[in-house]
Each structure stands twice: as C-alpha cells, then as structure tokens.
C-alpha cells in the first residue's frame, strides 16, 4: 500500500536531493573523459554521465534534469562503480539491470537493494534504468566493444 512512500523515504529523496556524485569537475570535460547522454522522451528527462578512467579505476559523475528516482539511481550507480575496473563496473551494471527485472538482491549494496523497491511501481522502473543503460553503453565503448555498445539499449 505505501511502497512509494517507503521507497522515497528509504533512499530516493535523500540521494535524489543530496547526491554525492552530481556535477562535472571540468567544463568542457578533459580529453580522457567520456560523456554519455540518455533521455526519456515520454517525460522529457535527460541525464549525462561523465566517466573517467585512470590507473585501472573508474570515476563517474552525472548531471541533468530528471525525476528523483532517476537522480537517485544515477547517484547510486556512480557510487557503485567508483574506483572499479571497467570489467567490474560492467558486471555491476548488468547485475543491477537484471535485478530491476527479477528482484534478485545477491551482490547488491544495501542502498541498491532499497532502490529495487521501485519494482513495486512498474511505471517508474524506466526512470531507475535510464542511467544504468547509459552506463552500459559508455562502458562497452570504453572497453572497445562496439557491438555491445550498439546493442546496449
């Protein structure tokens, strides 16, 4: 009955309003950074991810205009892949996207498990998925995998 309120109170409002990874460090971005923009034409939301990779460690930041579910999801995504290798980050993004469909929580942080509460609101799952699809595409390209990048949403 109150899944939406629980979701917002558990993680979405906090991470959506006080994100830890929002805002880009440099504008224009450094040459080594990769930006990936994703949009939801139904609601007009638009998000840009900026990924950097140095010394086998990823960094990710984001910015844009989107609902709190999407912003919180982007912030949790950036936290999940922070300092990870590209291969690890690809596994994490695949695992969470699958979890949004199946509900499987294995290997997910407590915050991501909280975000899975969006599954109770089917119309909002697309909002949660948006940054993760963008990251899937960007990471595939960074791994030099153009076929995966094309098929990733």
């Amino acid at each position, binding site marked *: 009955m109150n899944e939406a309120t629980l979701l917002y109170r558990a993680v979405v409002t906090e991470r959506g*309003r006080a994100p830890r990874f929002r805002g880009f460090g440099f504008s224009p971005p450094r040459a080594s950074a990769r930006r990936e923009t994703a949009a939801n034409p139904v609601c007009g939301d638009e998000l840009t991810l900026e990924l950097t990779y140095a010394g086998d460690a990823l960094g990710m930041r984001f910015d844009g205009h989107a*609902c*709190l*579910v999407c912003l919180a999801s982007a912030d949790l995504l950036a936290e999940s892949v922070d300092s990870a290798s590209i291969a690890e980050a690809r596994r994490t993004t695949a695992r969470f996207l699958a979890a949004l469909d199946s509900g499987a929580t294995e290997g997910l942080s407590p915050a991501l498990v909280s975000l899975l509460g969006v599954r109770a609101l089917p119309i909002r799952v697309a*909002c949660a998925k948006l940054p993760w699809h963008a990251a899937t595409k960007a990471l595939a390209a960074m791994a030099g995998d153009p076929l995966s990048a094309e098929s990733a949403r």
Partner: protein
Amino acid sequence: MITSPERSQFPALANGLVYLDSAATALKPTGVVDAVTAVYTAGEGAAHRGTFALAARATAKIETARGKVAALLGARDEQIVFCRGVTEGLNMLARGLAESLSPGDEIVVSELCHHASFVGFSLAAARVGATLRVAKVTPEGVLTVDAIAACISPRTKVVSLPHVSNVTGAVLDAGLVAELARRVNAIFVLDGAQAFPHLPVDVATLGCDAYVLGAHKAYGPSGVGVLHANAALLATLPPLHGGGHMVLEARADELRLAPAPARHEAGTPNLEGIAGFSAAIDLLVAARARGAIAREQALVGYLRERLEGLPFVRIVGRGRVALVSFEVEGCHPHDVATLLDEDGVAVRAGRMCAHPLFAAIGSRGALRASVALYNDSSDVDRLVAGLVRAHAVLHGAP
C-alpha cells in the same frame, strides 16, 4: 459543497478512486457499458451492408448516433463523419487538405496545439513543401488573437487551433479567428477534444469549417471520433482511406466515390464504439439538463482556488474550463504523481502531448487535474491533501 448526481453511474469509482484525469480519457458509465455489450450479445451484423434484420438494426444505431452528434453541434447529419478519434480526424484533414497545397502556401497552428494538430499539420506541410506558421504564446502560456493574426497572411490556406487547451483550459475566441481566416479564404479547423465534453458547441456560431471531437473523453468508448465539416469541404477533401462503403462503383477503369459522409468512412464501422458513444451522448444531454456545465465550471473554480491556496503550487496559464495544470515547487511532476497515486488520486504528469507549449513557457512538465461529471468537491480536497503530503515526503519530511 459541489456534488455529482451522475457519480453512481460510474462503476470504476466504487472503490473510492479520485479520478482527475478525464482530460486524458474519461471513465465510462454503466449505460455505455450496456450499450457496447448489447451489440455483442445481440449479434448485430455489419452496418450498411447486411440484408437481414440484425444488420438493419446496426445501421439504424449508427445513423441515430450520427443524428445525435449533429444535433449537439447544430449541424446536419451529412456533415458528420465517424472516424477513430480526434487524432485521426485532424490527420484526415491535414493529409487531405495538403493535397491541394503548393510550396509557399502556409498552414497556421499554435504553440498551444496538441500534438494531434501540431504534428499532423507539420507532417502534412513537410510532405508538400508548405510553410508551417506557429502562433506563439506569452511566457504565461496565453495565446492571443493578435498572435494568431500575426501569422495569417494571403498565403494562409489552413488555420488549425484548439477550441480549449489541454494544458491551460483556455477557451479560444473562435469567432474572431474565423473572421481572420475568412478574410484570406483559409479553412479554419477546430480541435474540440477538450471542449466537446464540457461546453456547448455550435459550429455555426464558432464559424469553423471543420470541428473534430472524440468519444472517449466524453464518457464514450475509445476508437470513435467525429470529423464535422461543411458540405463543400467534405465533398472536395480526398478520402484518407479507400475501401468498402465509400465507393458507389469500383472497377479497374473507374472509381465512383460515394457522397459524404460515406466517402470518408471506409471499412466496417466500429458499431460497438458508436453505440457506446450514442449512450454517452444521452448521459451528457441529460446531465446538462440538470446543470452539469455550470456545476463543472464551479468545480474547476474550486479546484483553482484550493490550488492557489498552496504556497508551493504555481498554476500554468489562466484557463477556466475543465482542467488546471500546475507545478509543485522543487518537485518533479512524476514524483508527485506517484505519491498521489498511492493516495488513490489519479492525475496527469508530464508534457501532455504539448511539447511546444512547455518549451515556450520554459517548463519541463507539470501536473494536471481535470474534472468531469462524476467529480465533486471532496475529490479536490483529497487532491490538495495528497499534494501537501507529497510535497513533505519529497522534501525529506519524516
């Protein structure tokens, strides 16, 4: 306290739902459900084709419905074409009228138009190299007659505008626009999707050459709409679809088309939808005899007054009919709508198939509460309570 004498006729409201999205689609009364079901249970045959009693009854149902719509619009039966909805009706006009346009001819729409008009006529203009002129709204979302006049010239062939805006609820001064169109011999098309369920419509008074309306926002089934147009327009408008019923004779070397309205009604008609629409019209007429129009407008006034009383709400536009769109400070419309849904309150959130308008007013989206026959002041009160709660949750209140 504003109450609804018709509310008990709508079974979807039995569980306490507060439905404030009739501008998207309206709930259906038992009379409409019964009319649709009756078509199936009676086994009524193909209208305009069959030679047995069931088919004759089907034909009679369609022609009776046509007469009801004509009476409501102050038009003649032969000026009423059944189509699939407002989007199809506007696109029938756009595609058909475009066939007689040339590069350099102009079509006037507005930033206030719903996509059915804006995109339909954009596609048509692009197809033939005509120019689309877009009448602009003010930063508050108001479309003035001056802004429309500024777009009309001797090259204008078509003017297509909303009778009532699906975002602001503003009512067009159709008579003034009709005069502007007449001076340049342009065809004046009105999108009546939001107006027909809530206002009396007399096409002669409005002065339009074509008026398009749909059933599903007027308590009828989906998949049914009406394209009304004057006789000259219907006679010369190329039909969008070719098929059965719209030809008198079809041979490889000759096609003789039927006169309007049949000319524009190819294929087997949506009998169950039209029968349902007929029942919806009966409800509408009866409700209006009980003062429904004034009651709805009073309810919209109450809705507006209560929303204006919330310090974190900003209303979009200055319209007074059927609906109010608004923004909630610091909150994305979808987040608010989700929390309202949890409270059993259904509203629309987003850009409402009106991207040009939202871009013009610098908004990325809004919420919209729209009223209908079955709403009352308690629905508005529950919406307001829900907004207060949603605002608190989204700002991190414990």
